[in-house]
C-alpha cells in the first residue's frame, strides 16, 4: 500500500521546527493571556461610554471574555486533539466488548471523554458497539459521557466560573453517564432496539477495522491543529452569541429577579431548568457564558448545572438521529433516566451547598 507521507505543511519542514514552534506558541499564549484584563479595560476606555454604566459593564465583560474564551479553547482543543490521536472508536470498542456491566460502565464513560466522537456518527458508532458485543447499557454510558463531559465544557467552566465548579461538573457528569448506563443495562431493553439493529446484533459480524496506523508526534500536532480549526469553524458564532447574552445579563438583568427565578429556594427551579434545557440545543461553548453570568447574578449552582447538563446531554437533534436505531420507547427511557439523574444532581447540589 501507500508509503508513509507527511503531506501539506509538514512536507520539507524538519520535525524539530514543529517542536520549537509548539513551545514558542505556548510561551506567546501565556504572555498574551496575562495581559487580557488591561487590554479589555483599555478598549472600553477608548469607547464613548461610562465605565461603570450598564453598557460599560456589559462591554468590559464582552471584551475580556471573548479573547479569554477563544484562547483557552485553542489551547485545550489542541491538547485534546493530540491526546485523542491515541484513541479511536475501534480501539475503544475492542476494550469494551464483552465487558461486564459495572466495570464496563465506568470504563465506557471514561473512554467516552477521550475517544474522538462526533454526534453525526452516533448511529454507526452505536451499531458498531452493539454488534461487537458491547452491552447496551455500557454503550449508553459512552453515548451519554461523550457529548456531556467534553473538553470544551470543562475548559470554559475552569476559565469563566472556576475549577471547583468544573471539577464538580466532571465528577457528576461521569457519574450520571455511569449510573444511567447501568440502569438502562439492568432494564434489559435489547428488545426495544429497531428490528434491523437487532438482526445485526444477532449476527454479530466481526467487522474489520482499517489497519491501525503508526503516527508520529508531528502528525499528532497536526491532528491537534485540525481539531482547533474544526471546533472554531463550528462554535465561534455560538461563543459570540453566548458571551453577548452573558454580557447583557451581566450589565442589565437585576440581581433580585434572577435570585427569585433561579435561586435555591424555589423548589421548582431545578425541574424547570431540566425541562427547558431538553429542546434547547447549543454546544458547551454557547451555554457556558450564560452559565457564568447566571451564577454571577446569584442563580443557584445546582440549578445552573442542571440546566447546562440538560442542554448539552439531551438534545433534540441527537434524539432524531438515534431514532434510526432506537424505538421511541427506548428513547423515552433514555431521556427519563438521564433527565432524572440530572434532576437529582441539581437538587442535591442546592441542598448541600
Amino acid at each position, binding site marked *: *500500500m*501507500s*508509503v508513509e*507521507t*507527511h*503531506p*501539506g505543511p509538514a512536507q520539507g519542514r524538519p520535525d524539530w521546527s514543529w517542536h520549537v514552534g509548539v513551545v514558542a506558541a505556548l510561551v506567546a499564549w501565556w504572555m498574551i493571556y496575562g495581559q487580557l484584563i488591561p487590554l479589555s479595560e483599555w478598549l472600553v476606555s477608548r469607547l464613548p461610554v461610562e465605565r461603570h454604566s450598564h453598557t460599560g459593564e456589559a462591554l468590559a465583560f464582552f471584551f475580556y471574555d471573548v479573547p479569554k474564551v477563544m484562547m483557552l479553547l485553542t489551547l485545550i482543543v489542541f491538547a485534546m486533539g493530540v491526546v485523542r490521536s491515541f484513541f*479511536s*472508536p*475501534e480501539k475503544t*470498542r475492542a476494550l469494551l466488548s464483552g465487558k461486564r456491566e459495572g466495570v464496563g460502565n465506568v470504563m465506557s464513560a471514561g473512554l467516552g471523554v477521550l475517544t*474522538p*466522537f*462526533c454526534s*453525526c*456518527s452516533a*448511529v*454507526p*458508532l452505536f*451499531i*458498531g*458497539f452493539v*454488534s461487537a458485543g458491547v452491552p447496551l447499557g455500557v454503550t449508553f454510558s459512552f453515548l451519554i459521557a461523550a457529548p456531556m463531559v467534553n473538553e470544551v465544557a470543562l475548559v470554559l467552566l475552569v476559565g469563566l466560573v472556576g475549577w471547583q465548579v468544573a471539577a464538580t461538573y466532571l465528577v457528576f457528569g461521569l457519574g450520571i453517564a455511569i449510573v444511567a448506563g447501568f440502569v438502562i443495562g439492568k432494564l434489559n431493553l435489547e428488545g426495544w432496539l429497531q428490528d*434491523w439493529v437487532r438482526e*445485526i446484533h444477532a449476527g454479530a*459480524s466481526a*467487522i*474489520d*477495522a*482499517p489497519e491501525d496506523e503508526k503516527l508520529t508526534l508531528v502528525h499528532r500536532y497536526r491532528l491537534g491543529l*485540525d481539531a482547533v480549526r474544526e471546533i472554531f469553524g463550528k462554535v465561534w458564532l455560538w461563543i459570540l452569541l453566548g458571551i453577548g447574552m452573558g454580557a447583557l445579563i451581566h450589565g442589565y438583568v437585576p440581581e433580585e429577579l434572577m435570585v427569585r427565578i433561579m435561586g435555591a429556594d424555589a423548589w421548582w427551579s431545578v425541574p424547570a431548568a431540566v425541562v427547558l434545557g431538553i429542546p434547547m440545543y447549543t454546544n458547551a461553548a454557547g451555554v457556558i457564558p450564560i452559565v457564568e453570568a447566571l451564577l454571577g447574578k446569584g442563580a443557584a449552582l445546582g440549578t445552573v448545572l442542571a440546566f447546562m447538563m440538560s442542554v448539552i446531554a439531551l438534545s433534540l437533534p441527537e434524539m432524531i*438521529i438515534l431514532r*434510526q*436505531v432506537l424505538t421511541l420507547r427506548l428513547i423515552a427511557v433514555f431521556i427519563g433516566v438521564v433527565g432524572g439523574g440530572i434532576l437529582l444532581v441539581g437538587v442535591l447540589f442546592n441542598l448541600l451547598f
Partner: protein
Amino acid sequence: MKSIKVYGPGCKRCETTAEMVHNRAAALGEEVEVEKVTDPREIAMAGVMSTPGISVDGKLVHAGGLPDEGKLDGWLKG
C-alpha cells in the same frame, strides 16, 4: 476503473471527503466511480464507526475525519 465508496450521513466533512476523492482522482488521471453511502444501516454494515469512511473496491481503507491527501493518492493509485 476503481469503485470508491464514501460513507457518511451527509455531514459537511463527508461532502468534503467525496469532493477530495473526485479532485485527487482527476489530478492523478485515475478513472473512478464514486458512490456516496448515506444510509446509516449500510454505513454500519460496512464497519464504519466514525464517519466519513472510504472504501476502495470493497475494502475499507479509512474511517473518521478527513483523509490525508497523500494517503488518498496511495489508495487511488493502489
